[in-house]
């Protein structure tokens, strides 16, 4: 594939991610933080987010499986997940977390489980998308091109 075409595709793809509300401008901030001294910053941060989120999701799932659910614990986990997702700009996961915390406050197990399911779905969604994005970037780099920077503002 031609480099220019790939670059256009990348831009289209990134735009679509923003349009769908999967990512927000925090992700742009991340991209801006990346420079020559720190070329893989975004990938590092996002993979950290993946680790963190998977661990937290497991914790939450386990906590909710318990006979008597300790909602303060769940809430703390969700809070962390919210922080993590917000810092990479995974907007939908973050929104899911906000809803989840409301259920935690109400101590609503059913709602929490539903929410958890939703968050998991969103998480895998965003994970797939981001991984696809990174693959595309790598392809561009491998083809000798540079990754175009996005300039989006709301």
């Amino acid at each position, binding site marked *: 594939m031609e480099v220019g075409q790939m670059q256009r595709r990348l831009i289209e793809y990134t735009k679509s991610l923003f349009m769908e509300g999967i990512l927000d401008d*925090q992700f742009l*901030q*991340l991209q*801006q*933080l990346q*420079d020559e*001294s*720190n070329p893989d*910053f975004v990938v*590092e*941060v996002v993979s*950290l*987010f993946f680790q*963190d989120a998977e661990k937290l999701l497991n914790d939450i799932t386990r906590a909710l499986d318990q006979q008597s659910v300790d909602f303060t614990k769940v809430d*703390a986990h969700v*809070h*962390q997940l*919210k*922080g*993590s997702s*917000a*810092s*990479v700009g995974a907007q939908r996961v973050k929104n899911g977390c906000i809803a989840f915390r409301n259920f935690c406050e109400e101590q609503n197990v059913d709602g929490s489980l539903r929410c958890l399911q939703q968050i998991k779905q969103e998480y895998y969604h965003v994970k797939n998308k981001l991984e696809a994005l990174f693959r595309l970037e790598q392809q561009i780099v491998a083809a000798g091109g540079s990754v175009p920077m996005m300039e*989006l*503002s*709301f």
Partner: protein
Amino acid sequence: MQAFAVMLLPTALIPCWYSMISRVERQVNLNSQDFHSKLHYEIENTEKFLHPINSSATNLAGVLKLSLNGTKLSFSMIETKVAPLLFQAWSTIPYLSQISYTGLEGLFFSYYTGQNQTLAVYSNSSYNSRSSAPNVKKNLSCYIQHVNHETGELYGNSIECPSLNLVSKRWFQEALNSPNGYASLETGWNNSQDLILLSSARINGEGVISLGFSAQLLTTRFTSIDRQGGSLYLATKDGKVLIEELKNTHMVLAGNMVSVQLMKPNGEKKVLGNVSCIIKDGSPRASTLNIQGTEYMFYCSSLDIVGVQSVYVLAFPQKGLVSLVRKNWIVALALLIVIITSMVVSILSFAYIFVRAAKREMHLCAALIKQMEATQQAERKSMNKSLAFASASHDVRASLAGLTGLIEMCYEEANPGSELETNLRQMDTCAKDLLGLLNSILDTSKIEAGKMQLEEEEFDLAQLLEDVVDLYHPVGIKKGVDVVLDPYDGSAIKFSQVKGDRGKLKQILCNLLSNAVKFTCEGHVTVRTWVRKPSLQNSIIASSHNGLMKYLQCLFHKSNEAYNDLEAMNAAQQDPNAMEFVFEVDDTGNGIPKEKHISVFENYVQVKETALGQGGTGLGLGIVQSLVRLMHGDISIVDKEIGEKGTCFRFNVILSTCDNVSCNNTKAEDLEMVDGSHIPELTLSTPSPGLWLRTSSSKLTVHSTPSPKVTTSHVVLLIQNNERRRTSQRFMENLSIKVSVAKQWEHLPSTLQKIKHKENHSCHNSLGKSDLSSPSGYLSSSASNNSSGVEKDVPLSSMDGSNYMLSVFKRTTPKFASSFILIVIDACAGPFLELCRIVAEFKKGLHNATCKVVWLEKPTMRNINFKHIEEDLVDPNDVVISKPFHGSRLYQVVRLLPEFGGTLQGNSSKLKEEIKFQAEKVPKDPSSSRSKPRSPPSNGILTKEQEIQEIGNSNDEKPLSGKKLLVADDNVLLRKLTVAGLLKLGAIAETCVNGQEALDLVCKGLSDQRKLGASNILPYDYVLMDCEMPMMNGYEATKQIRKMEKSYGVHIPIIALTAHTSGGEAKVAIEAGMDVHLGKPLKKEHLLEAIRYIDTK
């Protein structure tokens, strides 16, 4: 039910009452009968009492018979034997009115009472009764002689009187024949012919003793009995009436019957009825007769008076006691019936009313319940609507934001100048308008829901005002309306540093200004502000419309809401720093009719005539009012004077001033002024300079000042807009600056000529004489003295306008002997080239004065093109201001004057730069151009750099270079992110994973610094602290650090980081000792802003 109970009572009482009454009646009847029988008894008693008199005649006869012993009586014997005996009897027997002895032969001797004297009548001749015929008896003579009533002897002459001829009388014969004596009713022998009861008895068949009792005396015995209204009738059996008391009646005895006859006035008699005198069962029978309309009870009974058989009749009027009782009984019954009926009627009516009232109440209750249900339903509906509304508008806003973003994106891509671009721009404007509308609706619903809360922060009020006015200035200029910020008395500048809700205040001002600009077609819009001490009254009015009532209610009810309100109010009141800021937005637009002055503040109300075609929802002023009230103020429309156009909105809010800050600022300014200018020449040695200078003559001033002449500056204003010219002039005059005004550019040359003349003239004079003609110079010296320390102690109330000003603008006395002339020219006032020429000419003519020109140009039309103008016309030192001439620009221009720290040509290029900077960039940071002497030494580099960055407005991305920061966060992701961000900003970052580590690091750093002997240098310039961490959370760590650093005497700025964005967390963070609170994820701009805030603090 009650009514029946009440009715039951009289039905029980009436029989009771009836029986009682009948018992009384019976008793009364008995009593009266008793009385009647008592009367009978009494009469009988009287009769019995008289009874012994009956036998006295017989007894006397017996005694005489014995003393006579059957001898034939001669008159002499009668005189000697009978007469004394008669006299004895006469003296002893009561009621006796006459006593006599009558012999058959005609001998006669008697005593009787006549003319109140005892008289004796006797006849001493006798005749032979057997032979003589009755006619002979007439010859017998009779004599009357007086009697000595003690001895019975006769004395005086005897008078002859006609013979009584007693022998032939019927009673004499009867008595002679009856052995037991005889009694009858006769007439007496005295002259008055009184009725007497004669009781007689025979003596040996030859004579008769007769005792005569006065009937009148005896009957008085009967009549004297108390008969209680009864009448008595007494008659002998043979029909002779003794007593007859009943008037107009006559009673006739007929056997055992008494017939009662009525005597009519014409003499006729009418029989009324008969009364039977037969006695049954020992008591007489009563019979009732009607005499002339009156009922009488008649009782008849026989009686024996001194042996005379007689009959008496007692008549009682029926209307005695009984009839009285009976009558009263009827009246009482009638009364009772009336009472009962009235009672029944009243009870019934009461019951009726009661029932009706109950019915009505029930109806009302039902209506109320219905109404309440309806209200509740309506409230629920409204609530649901509000909620739905809020969420809907939130969504709409989100999509609108997306729209604007997309439009912007497209805008970038569109070819400039193409139709697409203009369309996009229009779309953008529409979307922004929509957003504005939506925001106002959202605000309204927020206020309605009571969710609006004040967000207190410190800010520069003067700056805010200037920003707002500058924001609307271009809009106004486009319409040909000038938007002017009037400095007024300068109080707002003095108390510029305030704490309050900046955003809402700005919203209010923006709203009012946009309204004013929108509805004004020509003229100007003026914004002015001043400060005053809050008065209680204002505050009360601010709390609500009927504040006093509410206040009272609060006192009594202490209902929670109201009480809280009051608390808040009191809090605002008690805050010693709380000041009342009054704002006025005055326009020359269409105006609002007076009757609409109140209603315009209601939601959705617009003044139809003026709002036509202007758009808007009519929510703006309602929101403004709500916001103003939220800030403990009130808004109203000030009445304009007749003939003046437009509207003037005035509102007041309570803001607390930050005294320390303003003090420090002024101090800093002081420092700056002293640095910038030279040492004041005017060091007075008089004991109390301020006082002396004001009172003494100016000569003294001159003598006491060894320095050269103090000159004054002169300002020439040529400003097109009246209002701006007026406000600027007044402001400068308040600062004791000489101001000359040219209203049109044609007047400028003459004005300048005048000044030039004066300048040159005074210059000559000043060589020999003191400058008497410069009052401002004289004033300035006193003011400069005052400002050193006295100024701050002056109580607020006594501060007048100029004092406010002077406290802001410190006067210093310049060294320069030459006077200074500042010309402020509106570049649009006339043809620019012409103006330049005039000014250049003026400058050439000046000998001993310095001149500076400030050009004001309209921001929208850049008509000053210096390149096209010859060099000799325009001084490179001239200042050009392209922003509206007010606020900070005005102050900067004033500071150009040497008295206010301005310098002359040498430094003027720098000044120009500064002003230009001020003009170009709507300044966000009030302290940007002024240095910040208070910032800690370690920040020195940063401050400079910042300044450079800001002034240069460059895109230098490393504002934090050389800074060392500590990042404490347990989340590796966030830590990495933060560090990367900091590195990008040029800072050095150290990390740790919890509060304990952070504490240890800070501790170590501090002790290391101490070892190096530089304990005042901070180990970390800033600490970014996550709040929720394992081991030790951010709050606790901050508390510990604060505790520890105290011993070192330093303050490490700590910035809190939380994922919570609510206000509560921020509060906790600040309470824990953190300086600023930021939300996660960390944004570059936020961090920089926070650092700037910390540095300025």
